């Protein structure tokens, strides 16, 4: 993957759920590891509740030149389970690519909707966020799942960006991230 360019990630969420924030935190973590990375929203006016996308590119070796939206991702992250039925989540997803999905369901539930040709990681992020944050905002929870399933950055690299972004709420967000990192299940890996 690395020889052919950066690893490309597309995050699907709804306006107000923090998709862009999560993309930014992961890029900042990668940059703190001396990698090259970029993160940006799907360009346009922001609308709360509407399906939105955010993008991340990470390259371990060289600066990233492409600035267009990610259309052929290596990884997709789904923050909002309701999007599975209304957005073409796997559009352009590379064969053997990774789906990281927030769901209360099982591997089988997801595989019934999508081809089994993708690597799959699932986590009930909404329940974790409700329990520890007191609200169903899952962006930081899903970062834990993404890191567990992909290893694109070190978990510790996220601590500083989290602190900078969330201040006094950083500790709680760190907790949900760690919990989801532990509880995320990756198909074929136990």
């Amino acid at each position, binding site marked *: 993957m690395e020889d052919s360019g950066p690893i490309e990630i597309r995050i699907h969420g709804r306006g107000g759920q923090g998709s862009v924030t999560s993309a930014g935190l992961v890029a900042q973590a990668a*940059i703190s590891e001396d990698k090259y990375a970029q993160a*940006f929203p799907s*360009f346009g006016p922001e609308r709360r509740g509407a399906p939105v996308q955010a993008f991340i590119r990470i390259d371990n070796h060289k600066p990233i030149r*492409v600035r267009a939206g990610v259309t052929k991702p290596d990884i997709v992250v789904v923050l909002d389970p309701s999007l599975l039925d209304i957005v073409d989540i796997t559009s352009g997803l590379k064969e053997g690519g990774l789906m990281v999905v927030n769901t209360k369901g099982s591997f089988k539930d997801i595989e019934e909707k999508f081809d089994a040709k993708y690597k799959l990681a699932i986590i009930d992020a909404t329940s974790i966020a409700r329990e520890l944050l007191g609200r169903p905002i899952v962006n930081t929870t899903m970062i834990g799942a993404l890191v567990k399933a992909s290893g694109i950055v070190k978990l510790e690299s996220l601590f500083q960006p989290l602190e900078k972004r969330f201040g006094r709420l950083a500790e709680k967000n760190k907790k949900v991230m760690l919990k989801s990192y532990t509880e995320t299940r990756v198909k074929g890996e136990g």
Partner: protein
Amino acid sequence: MAQRVGMEVSVAIGEIVKLANTDVVSAYPITPQTHIVEHLAELVADGELDAEYIPVESEHSAMSACLGSAATGARTFTATAGQGLELMHEVLYVASSMRLPIVMTVANRALSSPLSVWSDHSDAMACRDTGWIQIFVENGQEAVDNTLCAFRIAEDNNVLLPVMIHLDGFHVSHVIEPILLPEQSQVDAFLPKNNYPLPLDTDKPVAMGDFGPPVIYTEAKWAQEVNLRKSKETILKVWQEFGKSFSRYYKPVECYRCEDADTLLLTMGSYSETAMTTIDKMRGEGKKIGLIRIRLWRPFPFEEFRQAVKDIKTLIVLDRAISFGGPGGPVCSEIRSALYSQNNRPEIVSFIGGLGGRDITVAGFEEIINSGMEIAETGSDNEFEIFGVRE
């Protein structure tokens, strides 16, 4: 030592404006603004930047407030984009004519209608005759570096002109990417205090922007023209000194793999980085193709540009703006005019594309280059080719 941070480019521009110890920021903070002025408002409110922040009721007022501020000798910054720049338009002329060293970043966006907040160069091209120095950047680092350089260029007493730094809206302004932010001591060593020669002072009254009857208007405009052309010397000097201090060098015309090229593609702004990937691919196939970018749009670098294209056969120009009913894209029409007097000039093919935020992919640039080379051979009845349009 500079610090390598992952930061949204707009926020990084706010940081460099802070490091430049700016005295006054005046802005109208509503769409299509960027986080640049939002971040500066935070820095001022948090006491991290000791500046006067003047929130105003429109972009026209933002630039008007900058006039007054710069005339007192205060280091003055504002930022805008798209429609906002249009609303400033008449005041832009006043800023340059009154020789006021204002620095402004412009996140380039398309113009209405239809309503678009996405990027192209229509806004930048619409103010090419306003007498400002205009510099185009391609990524976040270039935006930060050139914003710093802009203060030094604008305030140099041989220049005393306002400077616009053009970065593409969204594609650069909204991206989190690695930025090397200099230390305060490095900025202080590079950027001297603003030493405006005739600041407004009640003890030493001067008249500025006075009436200019026919007996003096032509002289005033000629002086302005001579001054803007001459500013290139200082711009080159400042870039050179920036390079010595920070090891990143900027030139009025930037070349990428132009050595021994027969054909050059010309772009400006962030799409240049995508085009480089296309150039690498086509070079890999043995094609003698390179990329040329105009960084300094005003004053136009005639000498450097003519030098860069003197040995090539074909020049393919991509404009991201239309001059409606005119000779095509504004960049291409200026380039044709810059080369008309030259004995050896390349075939010039004009393309317009990437309007209102439409992406041009690596494959798209390959299509532009291939079709441009074909048109150079066969000729075309069109003033310009429009790329990727659905008809």
